[in-house]
C-alpha cells in the first residue's frame, strides 16, 4: 500500500505529525509496533511547560506548541467521534519552589533570565506562594509562579490527535514493527517492511521515541537516541489539596543533566481523578523496567519536603516510562543527513507531549517545502552536537 507519508510511531509526536501532514493534504499511514500511546506517551504526566526552559530554540518550540495546544480543543470539537476521551487540557500554572537556602538565588536568577526571554515568570514571597498552595511547606526559601504552564492527559491527547488525523484521511496500523528499509541497501528510502507487510511512501517520518535509535538502524540511518527512564508515583485518591503543578527547583537541573546515574526532583500535581502524581526521576539504564525502590524512596522524600502532608499519603501505583534522550537535550526535527526520504521527529525526552504540536508543524513545513515558522537549524539531525555523540 502506498501513501505520501508514513509516520513510524503512534505516540503524541507521531500522532501530531500525522494530523499535520494529513491536514496539508498528504495521504498518511501511521505504523506502530504496538498500539497508540503504548510507549512513552502512556507513561508520563502530560506536562506542557515553559517553566523548565531557558532562552533558546527549545523555548521557542515550547511557546509555539503551547499556543497550538491552547487552540486544539476548539479545532477538535467538530472532528472527533464521541468515544474519544477529552484532552483534559488545563492551563493550571506552575509553581517552582526552592526548599534550601542554597537553592533560592539560582531559582530567582533563572526566572529573571526567563522573563528576559518572554516567559511570564513571577517571583512570589513565601506568603504569596502559600496563598496559591496553602499546604506548601512554609519554610520555602524562594518561589516563582508560571501562569503559562499547562497540562493534558497524554493518552487522550494522543488518541484525539490520531482520530483527528484519521478524520483527515490518515490510516493507523497497529502491531506493525519495522524490520527493514524498502528497498534494502539504497540511498533513497521508499518505504518500510514491517511485521504486517510492506508499506511504501515518498516520505518516512521516524517518531518512535526511545525506540527511534533501533528503528533508524533498521533503516540504514544512525541516530543517537537512548532511553532514559523516569518514574512517577500515583497516590490513592484524596481530597483536592494541590492546585497547580508544583516543582522543586532541582527539577531543572535534573532535566538538563547528562548524568546516567539516578536523579530525582519533585514534580507534584493533582489529577481530575483525585489522585496525586509525584515525579520524577531520570536514569539511564537501557530498557530495564524493573521497579527501582531507590528512585521511589527518593521521590517520596523530596515530595514530602515540598508538601509535608504527603507523609500520610499512600502510593498506589508507579509508572515507569522510557524517554527518548539525546545528548544535546534538543529534539531532532528534519531530514536525515544520510538517507534521503527519511525524516526525524523524536528525541524530546520528557517534553514530547508539550513540544508535539510545534514539532509537527515544523516537520510539516519542512516536508511540504513551506517556509517554517521556527528556525529549523537548531533541530536539524545533521547538527554538529549530535555528530560527536
Amino acid at each position, binding site marked *: 500500500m502506498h501513501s505520501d507519508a508514513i509516520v513510524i510511531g503512534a505516540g503524541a509526536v507521531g500522532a501530531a505529525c500525522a494530523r499535520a501532514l494529513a491536514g496539508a493534504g498528504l495521504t498518511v499511514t501511521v505504523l506502530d509496533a504496538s498500539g497508540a500511546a503504548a510507549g512513552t506517551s502512556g507513561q508520563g504526566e502530560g506536562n506542557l511547560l515553559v517553566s523548565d526552559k531557558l532562552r533558546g530554540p527549545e523555548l521557542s518550540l515550547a511557546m509555539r506548541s503551547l499556543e497550538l495546544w491552547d487552540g486544539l480543543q476548539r479545532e477538535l470539537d467538530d472532528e472527533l467521534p464521541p468515544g474519544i476521551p477529552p484532552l483534559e487540557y488545563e492551563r493550571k500554572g506552575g509553581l517552582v519552589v526552592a526548599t534550601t537556602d542554597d537553592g533560592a538565588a539560582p531559582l530567582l536568577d533563572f526566572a529573571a533570565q526567563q522573563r528576559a526571554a518572554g516567559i511570564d515568570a513571577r517571583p512570589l514571597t513565601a506568603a504569596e506562594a502559600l496563598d496559591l498552595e496553602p499546604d506548601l511547606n512554609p519554610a520555602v526559601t524562594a518561589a516563582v509562579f508560571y501562569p503559562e504552564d499547562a497540562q493534558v492527559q497524554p493518552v487522550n491527547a494522543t488518541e484525539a490527535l490520531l482520530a483527528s488525523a484519521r478524520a483527515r484521511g490518515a490510516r493507523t496500523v497497529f*502491531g506493525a514493527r519495522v524490520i527493514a528499509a524498502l528497498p534494502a541497501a539504497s540511498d533513497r528510502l521508499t518505504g518500510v517492511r514491517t511485521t*504486517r507487510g510492506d508499506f511504501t511512501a515518498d516520505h518516512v517520518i521516524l517518531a518512535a521515541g526511545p525506540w527511534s535509535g533501533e528503528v533508524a538502524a533498521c533503516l540504514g540511518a544512525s541516530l543517537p537516541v537512548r532511553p532514559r527512564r523516569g518514574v512517577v508515583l500515583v497516590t490513592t485518591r484524596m481530597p483536592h489539596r494541590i492546585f497547580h503543578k508544583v516543582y522543586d527547583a532541582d527539577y531543572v537541573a535534573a532535566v538538563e543533566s547528562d548524568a546516567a546515574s539516578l536523579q530525582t526532583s519533585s514534580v507534584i500535581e493533582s489529577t481530575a481523578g483525585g489522585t496525586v502524581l509525584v515525579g520524577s526521576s531520570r536514569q539511564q539504564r537501557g530498557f530495564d523496567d524493573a521497579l527501582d525502590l531507590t528512585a521511589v524512596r527518593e521521590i517520596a522524600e523530596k515530595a514530602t519536603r515540598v508538601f509535608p502532608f504527603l507523609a500520610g499519603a499512600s502510593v498506589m501505583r508507579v509508572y515507569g516510562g522510557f524517554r527518548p534522550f539525546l545528548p544535546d537535550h534538543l529534539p531532532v526535527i528534519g531530514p536525515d543527513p544520510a538517507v534521503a526520504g527519511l525524516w526525524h521527529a523524536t528525541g524530546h525526552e520528557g517534553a514530547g507531549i508539550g513540544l508535539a504540536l510545534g514539532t509537527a508543524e515544523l516537520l510539516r513545513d519542512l516536508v511540504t517545502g513551506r517556509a517554517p515558522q521556527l528556525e529549523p537549524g537548531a533541530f536539524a539531525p545533521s547538527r554538529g552536537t549530535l555528530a560527536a555523540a
Partner: protein
Amino acid sequence: MTRVAVVGAGPAGLAAASAALRAGAEVTLLDAAAATGGQYWRHLPPSRPAAREARLHQGWRDFTMLSRAVARHPRATVIAGAQVWAVEPCAFGDRAPTLQYAVGDADGSDRDVRTLSPDALVLATGAHDLTLPFPGWDLPGVFTGGAAQALAKSERVAVGERVVVAGAGPFLLPVAASLLSAGAEVAGVFEASPAGTLAAGWASGAASVAAMPHKLGELAGYVVGQLRGRVPYRAGAGVIAAHGIDRVEAVTVAALDADWRPIPGTERVIACDAVAVSHGFTPRLELAIAAGCALADDFDKLNPAGLDGLDPAHFDGLNPAGLDRLNPAEPAAPRPWSRFVAVDDDQRTSVPRVFAAGEVTGIAGADAALREGGLAGWLAAGGDPGDRRVAAARRRIARYRGFARALDAAHGIRPGWTDWLTRETTVCRCEELSYGRLTDVLEATGSRSIRALKLATRAGLGPCQGRICGRTVESIAAARNGAPLDGVVIDRRPIAAPIRFSELARLPHPEERHEP
C-alpha cells in the same frame, strides 16, 4: 542453612512451609491476614471458638496439623498481618528476589517496614473471587460467592433471608451449603454452563477425575447430602440482571446457550434479598510478575503473555475509516481468564530460586494446593529430589492438573456472557466506567494497548487497581479490537499494595539492604 520465604499462608503456603521445615530450612511465612489459613481455611477469631468448627471446613485436620507444625517449629517465623508491597528481582540472579513488606494494621500509621532476602521463595498468594458484571451487580445485596461463604462461616451470618446463588463452577455448591447452614433459604443455584458442556468437560478429564474419588465424593456430598430436595439446581442458566432501588429485590434468570449467551424468551424473575455470584477465581499474580516469573495463558504452555508482532499474512488491508480493525485471521487473543504463573513439574517458575504453588498456578482446589505447596517447599529448601515422596507428589499433581483442565473445560468462562450487559452496566466499579463508554472508546480509538486503554477509560485505576474489573476489561478489549499488542497484563502491579510516603522514607538505604 537454606532460608526459605513463603508468601501466603493458605493450604499451599502452609504445606510449603511445613515441607521446607522438614527439609531442614529456616522458614519465614508471611500472610497479609491476621491469622493463617488463607481464604480456604477462614476460621473463627480465637475468642469465639465453635464446637462445630471441624464440620464446617474441608480438611480441618489438615489445617490444624499443618498450622501447629509450622507455628511451633523452632526454625519457623510466622508473620501475620504482613503485606508484601514490592518484590525486587535479584540483579545478579544468584539469589531469590527481595521482598519488601509492612507489618501491622493497613489503616494504622505505624506499620513496621521490613525487607527479606531469602535463598529461595515460594509464592502461594492464592486467588480471589471472579465475578462477571451484569446489570445491577453493583446494588447492595449482591455478594461474591466467597464473601457470602466467609460471612456464613466466620460470623454465622447469612447475607440474606432468600438468596440466589449463581455463576459457574463447583464452588457454587459449598456457597449454597454454607448459606443453608447459616439459616438462609437458597432460592436456586444456577450454573452457567449447560449440562452438555459440563458432561463433555468433565469427561475430557475423566481419567484424572476418576483417579480422585475423594474430590468427586466431596462434590457429590454437597449435592446429595445438603442440597438435594432443599435447593433447586439448574445448569445452563444464569443471573443476567439484579433489580431493586436501594438493594436487591429480585433477579432475572435466563437460560444460557453453550457460549453463555442468554436465550431470548427464557427470562424469569425471582424474588430474593441477596445474590451470591462466583464465576471462578482470579489468581493473585502481582508478586510473581514483579519477581519476573513467566506466565502461562494455557494449561499446557509456558507462554509469556503478549504478542511480538503478527504474521504478515494476517494483514489484508484497512477499512474505510482508516482504523485497522480486528482481523479474523489474527491469532486468538490470549486467554485472560486462564492466565497463571507458569511452573514446571517441580513447581519451579521461570525465575531461579522462585517456586509457585496453589491457585496462582491453576485453579484445582485445596487438595492440589496442599500437594503443590509440599513439593515446592521441599525443593525450595534443598530437599532431596530423589525422595520417594517427591515422585509420588509429582504424580498426584499431574492428576490435579488434569482435574484443573476438566474444571476449566466444564465451567470456564465463555465469550457470550457480554450479551447480558447493557450500555449502562458498570464495568469498573471503582471508577464508575460503563460498558457503553468502554465500547465507545474501543470503537473510536481501535486501541490495542491495555496501558493506554486504562488511562483513556480509567478502567482499573481506582483503589482495587483492576483486581475486580481487570480481566473483564481485557477480554472485552480483545474481543472488540483484537489481542492487546503492548504486552501489558492488567495483573502487573509493581506496587502490590499501597505504601505510605512516611513508610517509604523509613526503608533501609540500598547500601544497608544488600548486605549478604
